[in-house]
């Protein structure tokens, strides 16, 4: 432990604590912009400077560690002046088009100006001009970059993808891709984790708001919208609610006011995804048990950025990925087939919008593999942040709306579906469904909460022995099914490399690109802290337990759908609409 004085107060903190952390532990919040707790420190903004007695230059408190007997002042006249100065320097090379910037009023740079009491930008300064790079998911406008390098740390050290890096030096420094290549030509997965940490509007989702407003104002279009629980437990953060406030009911009312015609629950389609995926797994198991060849392990396909990752780094292994489409695409495919037929509508008049916690989905819907009858399954993807901006634009007061139900037929969902957005959620639901299909008995877990594989640790595995299966599944008698779960691409790399080497011990693998799953997706509100994430999670677990039906295969919406339209899991019609063949984008 180390004793020091901060603002005339004696404090005691553990060794190798930084001054900034030591101050925080003692309720002093030193302004900081590039530092991101638990994720990134680089010391570039120099807004966190403090005075240390006996040291001539001001110290960046996010980098400098405490020393025994240190005397620190965090708020002297000199400190305030230098901070202001450093802030103005940052601002001088920042394209200041706040009124038209997507992150206006949700910008750490703006907030910092207010906090530091900056009233005018004194240095007009020379600004470097960079072209704006627009990919289907991510837009990079380096004219707004303040070089905090959070995105570099996230893309390299956390996501292990590494398509962003600092280039050049001095005044010409710019965060860039290799050789200034557009994002859609490098190995970007579109996970969007960089957009969550960027403190300004330099890296953000590619805007679809305009297209959606346009569809809404088109009298000839029936605009279908769908959203999942990962969105409804997080969107409140954009409107000053306590994080983790579930707002599905209010959101439904709100979307209706905005003019959407049908408001569906993506979670309902999740149950469908699980049933189809379980059937696919059993099919592959049956083939291998009979001594024939099938691609095992089956790898989940729910995460769009993971599919892109495999396509980038393991194009030869694409066949391991489940052919099952992700829930929102399934719902889109059904909205543009069964539902349009039922409602006697014209196919080309249906416009499907997905509200997602995700940026990668924006790219996914442009894939030719995600079309039926020459039409995309989903026409536009809005992130949680974008839909919040639309609500604000429309001037709708979320707080004064009554709760409403999702529309039929995609209204009800199981408790398992609530955990779709949490790492391990797909695995739990699939395992229990498979077990029940095979044995006719419920998987003996306490209400599906398999704590051993859910939660936040990066990579986990578990085994399940099948005993006394039903007649049709005798081939699985005594077979131990091995599964693994991971989120983030570090674990994914490990599991994929096993597959490449032919050493994978697993039958089934779930991968989510975003650490922790979609609840921490690249399209979710920012800024994000561990506490906020925890609250979103608690909300999802709470909703999951409150559901009348806990299991996907008990969802009556789904059974009705099979009866009326799809016949049975993996039927020819199901294959046509709900499955796809993954291909490398050319």
């Amino acid at each position, binding site marked *: 432990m180390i004793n020091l004085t901060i603002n005339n107060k004696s404090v005691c903190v553990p060794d190798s604590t930084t001054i900034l952390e030591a101050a925080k532990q003692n309720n002093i919040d030193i302004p900081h912009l590039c530092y991101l707790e638990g994720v990134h420190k680089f010391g570039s903004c120099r807004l966190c400077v403090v005075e240390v007695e006996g040291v001539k230059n001001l110290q960046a408190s996010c980098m400098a560690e405490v020393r025994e007997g240190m005397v620190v002042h965090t708020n002297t006249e000199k400190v305030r002046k230098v901070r202001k100065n450093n802030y103005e320097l940052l601002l001088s090379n920042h394209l200041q088009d706040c009124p038209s910037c997507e992150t206006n009023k949700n910008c750490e740079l703006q907030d910092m100006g207010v906090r530091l009491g900056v009233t005018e930008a004194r240095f007009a300064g020379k600004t470097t001009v960079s072209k704006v790079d627009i990919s289907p998911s991510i837009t990079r406008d380096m004219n707004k970059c303040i070089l905090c390098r959070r995105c570099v740390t996230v893309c390299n050290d956390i996501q292990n*993808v*590494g*398509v962003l*890096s600092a280039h050049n030096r001095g005044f010409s420094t710019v965060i860039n891709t*290799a*050789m200034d*290549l557009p994002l859609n030509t*490098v190995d970007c997965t579109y996970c969007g984790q960089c957009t969550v940490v960027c403190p300004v509007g330099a890296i953000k989702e590619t805007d679809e708001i305009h297209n959606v407003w346009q569809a809404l104002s088109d009298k000839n279009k029936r605009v279908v919208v769908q959203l999942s629980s990962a969105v409804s437990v997080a969107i409140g953060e954009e409107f000053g609610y306590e994080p983790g406030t579930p707002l599905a009911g209010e959101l439904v009312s709100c979307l209706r006011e905005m003019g959407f015609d049908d408001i569906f629950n993506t979670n309902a389609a999740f149950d469908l995804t699980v049933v189809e995926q379980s059937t696919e797994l059993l099919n592959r198991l049956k083939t291998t048990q009979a001594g024939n060849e099938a691609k095992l392990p089956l790898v989940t396909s729910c995460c769009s950025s993971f599919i892109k990752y495999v396509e980038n780094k393991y194009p030869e292994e694409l066949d391991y990925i489940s052919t099952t489409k992700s829930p929102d695409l399934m719902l889109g495919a059904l909205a543009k087939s069964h539902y349009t037929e039922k409602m006697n509508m014209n196919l080309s008049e249906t416009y499907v919008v997905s509200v997602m916690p995700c940026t990668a989905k924006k790219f996914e819907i442009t894939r030719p593999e995600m079309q039926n009858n020459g039409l995309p399954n989903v026409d536009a993807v809005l992130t949680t942040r974008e839909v919040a901006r639309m609500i604000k634009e429309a001037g709708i007061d979320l707080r004064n709306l009554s709760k409403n139900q999702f529309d039929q037929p995609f209204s009800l969902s199981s408790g398992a579906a609530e955990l779709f957005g949490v790492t391990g959620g797909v695995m739990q639901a699939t395992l229990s469904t498979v077990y029940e299909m095979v044995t006719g008995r419920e998987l003996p877990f306490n209400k599906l909460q398999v704590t051993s594989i859910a939660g936040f640790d990066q990579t986990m595995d578990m085994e399940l022995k099948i005993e006394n299966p039903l007649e049709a599944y005798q081939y699985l008698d005594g077979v131990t099914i091995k599964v693994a779960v991971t989120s983030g691409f570090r674990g994914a790399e490990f599991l994929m490399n096993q597959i490449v080497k032919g050493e994978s011990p697993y039958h089934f693998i779930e991968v989510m690109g975003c650490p922790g799953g979609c609840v921490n997706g690249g399209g979710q509100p920012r800024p994000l802290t561990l506490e906020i994430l925890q609250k979103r999670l608690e909300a999802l677990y709470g909703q999951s337990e409150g559901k009348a039906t806990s299991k996907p295969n008990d969802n009556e919406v789904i059974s009705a759908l099979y009866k009326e339209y799809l016949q049975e899991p993996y039927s020819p019609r199901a294959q046509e609409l709900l499955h796809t063949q993954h291909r490398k984008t050319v």
Partner: protein
Amino acid sequence: MNCEATKCQCGCDQETDQQKYEKIAEIIAKYKNQAGSLIQVLHAAQNIYGYLPLELQRFIAAGMDKPLAEVSGVITFYSFFSTQPKGKHTIRVCMGTACYVRGGKKLVDRLEDILKVQVGETTEDRKYTLDIARCIGACGLAPAMMIDDVVYKQVNPDKLETILAKY
């Protein structure tokens, strides 16, 4: 090693791309597991290949097990790396304070005109690379420039063509 084998078959006495890549692969293998060796590898690769185009960057990134963006970031950080092919001769116009004030910029403009390239680029015939330099120590006789190792002082823009004709 058999000397003949490393020679290009057409008799032009130059290594083929494939031979250069093989050499670079050897260097990568040697340095791969040493922390902080990327710069050395890039150096060696540039010596062998002459410059560091995107394809070669990809090759090195894969070999060193580093993200491509990191490799490209390091290359752009240090001015001695080049991603453009170098010409036979390098022209470096001084843009230090004295030379700038006395017409360095005019020299650059004129050279860009004559050679039809921008600063940092190489002419199509690979004869000249145009670059700028900070003070080259001839301030008293500004504006100055260098072609390879030869310093030209008090250069008159109208004389540039005559100077270039010597190469």
